[in-house]
């Protein structure tokens, strides 16, 4: 950057400029007293080790987050938010008082469709869960069900992107990138933000775990679940172990020699460090994802012995292993690539996905609890939106970003509670409305960060994870 300096042409001009400057100094001091300017430049990255652990803004309740992403939009109306009114109005169009929302497939004039599921209250908390999720229902007293979520996007790519980055337009950093930017990591041998999917790549792909304008170090790493988890972790088969070490030693010598007359160049040192991290990962990552050490009982618990549950079970079990190794944020996609998108046949679609995910997710909660990890791990279950009370093509439901359900469990979450509600037919959130930004602010809060103070100067603006809004959902906190 070129400093912008204009020469002073007169004594009057000097005093005028200096005067304003001094005034600004005093003003910024006063702002600082009020806590207004305290958020500027609050994170100092060590250029040599940008992943070094950094203190949170306040004590964290959750050290790690496991984000269970039900991709495609699971139906809150058939899982967590029963609406008896839909039985009464079955087959009729939506009452006029609800207006005409603009839906993805233009279905707002279609008849209302009641749920075919049986809902029951579970645990001491009496939280309603449908018969599609019996294993998760066993943990009702651990859940905080937020029934009043809403988002901005109508379609999948934008909405998945918003759930991950805060914006329907791609380009901003993912929440996982923000958290590692804020906190660094306790485990320097593994990636800090890991994404796993039970099927094809999530819609929108790497934009959903991009570091955006944050340093590239904070980008998420997509783990493959077959063979080696990280791309290029191992050298090609023509290069042996001793050969690789010998090459790296030469490289270190070349780099050290090159840096000798450039002692202040942190870029060079950082790059040296990234090779060392890559080498350490080569050893640590295969161990972290090796399920051979897991007992038969654990494998069975996660459903690895059944074809339907094997894929989701594998990524859930891997998530527990990564959290044990202090990876700060792990995302597991269930139904990746819009699996939960039940436009045509809700019963068929959700039966399959609930069967695939219920056992593994229930197992994950039980396993985390048994190992004493649930207190320090925040588990989030969410899709990018919910589904409409009116039908699509007779048996399906359309996208609903105006009202849907997510739940949280574990680290710092008020267990056995229901927060917020949707209207009588479950179309819109009406009480304690929780926008995606509010959800993000709450997750960050549980990790010990104030979403307004977690900023990064980008193109002249202190950017933050929640853009310009977001409020803590206090009802979620224990």
């Amino acid at each position, binding site marked *: *950057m070129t400093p912008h300096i204009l020469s002073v042409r007169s004594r009057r001009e000097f005093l005028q400029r200096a005067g304003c400057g001094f005034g600004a100094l005093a003003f910024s001091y006063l702002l600082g007293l009020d806590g207004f300017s305290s958020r500027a430049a609050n994170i100092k*990255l060590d*250029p040599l080790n*940008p992943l070094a652990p950094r203190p949170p803004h306040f004590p964290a309740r959750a050290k790690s987050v496991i984000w269970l992403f039900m991709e495609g939009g699971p139906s809150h109306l058939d899982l967590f938010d029963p609406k008896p009114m839909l039985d009464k109005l079955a087959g009729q169009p939506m009452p006029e008082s609800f207006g005409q929302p603009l839906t993805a497939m233009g279905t707002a004039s279609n008849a209302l469709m009641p749920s075919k599921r049986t809902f029951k209250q579970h645990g001491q908390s009496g939280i309603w869960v449908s018969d599609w999720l019996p294993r998760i229902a066993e943990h009702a007293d651990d859940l905080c069900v937020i029934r009043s979520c809403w988002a901005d996007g109508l379609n999948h790519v934008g909405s998945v992107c918003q759930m991950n980055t805060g914006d329907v337009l*791609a*380009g901003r950093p993912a929440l996982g990138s923000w958290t590692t930017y804020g906190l660094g990591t306790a485990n320097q041998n593994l*990636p800090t933000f890991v994404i796993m999917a039970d099927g094809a790549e999530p819609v929108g792909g790497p934009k959903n775990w*991009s*570091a*955006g*304008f944050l*340093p*590239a*170090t904070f*980008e998420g*790493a997509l783990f493959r679940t077959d063979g080696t988890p*990280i*791309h*290029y*972790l*191992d*050298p*090609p*088969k*023509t*290069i*042996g172990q*001793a*050969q690789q070490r*010998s*090459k*790296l030693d*030469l*490289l270190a*010598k*070349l*780099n050290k*020699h*090159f*840096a000798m007359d450039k002692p202040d160049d942190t*870029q*060079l040192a*950082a*790059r*040296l*460090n*990234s*090779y060392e*991290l*890559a080498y350490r*990962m080569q050893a640590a990552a295969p161990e972290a994802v090796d399920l051979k050490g897991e007992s038969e009982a654990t494998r069975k618990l996660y459903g690895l012995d059944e074809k339907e549950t094997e894929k989701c079970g594998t990524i859930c079990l891997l998530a527990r292993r990564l959290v044990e190794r202090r990876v700060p944020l792990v995302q597991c996609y269930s139904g990746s690539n819009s699996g939960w998108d039940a436009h045509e046949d809700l019963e068929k679609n959700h039966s399959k996905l609930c069967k695939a995910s219920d056992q593994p997710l229930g197992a994950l909660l039980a396993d985390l609890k048994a190992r004493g990890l649930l207190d320090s791990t925040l588990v989030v279950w969410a899709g990018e939106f919910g589904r409409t009370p009116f039908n699509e093509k007779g048996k399906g439901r359309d996208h609903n970003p105006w009202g849907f359900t997510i739940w949280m469990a574990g680290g710092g979450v008020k267990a056995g509670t229901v927060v917020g509600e949707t209207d009588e037919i479950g179309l819109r959130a009406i009480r304690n409305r929780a926008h995606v930004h509010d959800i993000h602010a709450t997750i960050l809060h549980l990790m010990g960060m104030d979403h307004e103070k977690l900023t990064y100067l*980008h*193109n002249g603006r202190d950017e933050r994870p929640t853009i310009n809004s977001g409020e803590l959902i206090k009802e979620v906190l224990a």
Partner: protein
Amino acid sequence: MPDTHESCPRRNVTTSPAQALTLLNSELTLQWAQAFAGRVIETAKGHPGREVETAFRLAYSRPPDKAEKRMAEEFLESHRAILRQRAAASEELALPPKLPEKYDPARAATLVDFCHMLMNANEFVFIN
């Protein structure tokens, strides 16, 4: 990798293990190194003493200094021993696409690895 869709006046940290791993372990960069070593052998016209200098000139547009020459020679010797063992165990070597007759394959594979590291080194990756 940094997000190139988003313009940025300055990035204070751009290095990540993913970059290092790609440059270090991908088949593609190894293929580059194989082609590079082939060119070095061809340019040095069978004078092994000239290969290190040729490689430095091709990669960095400058000859190696004394310390670098020594480093290179030490590496070529110790590394070739590792590759001889691999060759003796009939393990596949990464070789240049074309080799002059009677050129020792272990020697050629050593040069490939040397060229590969020249391309991974900071001097190659950073614009000064």
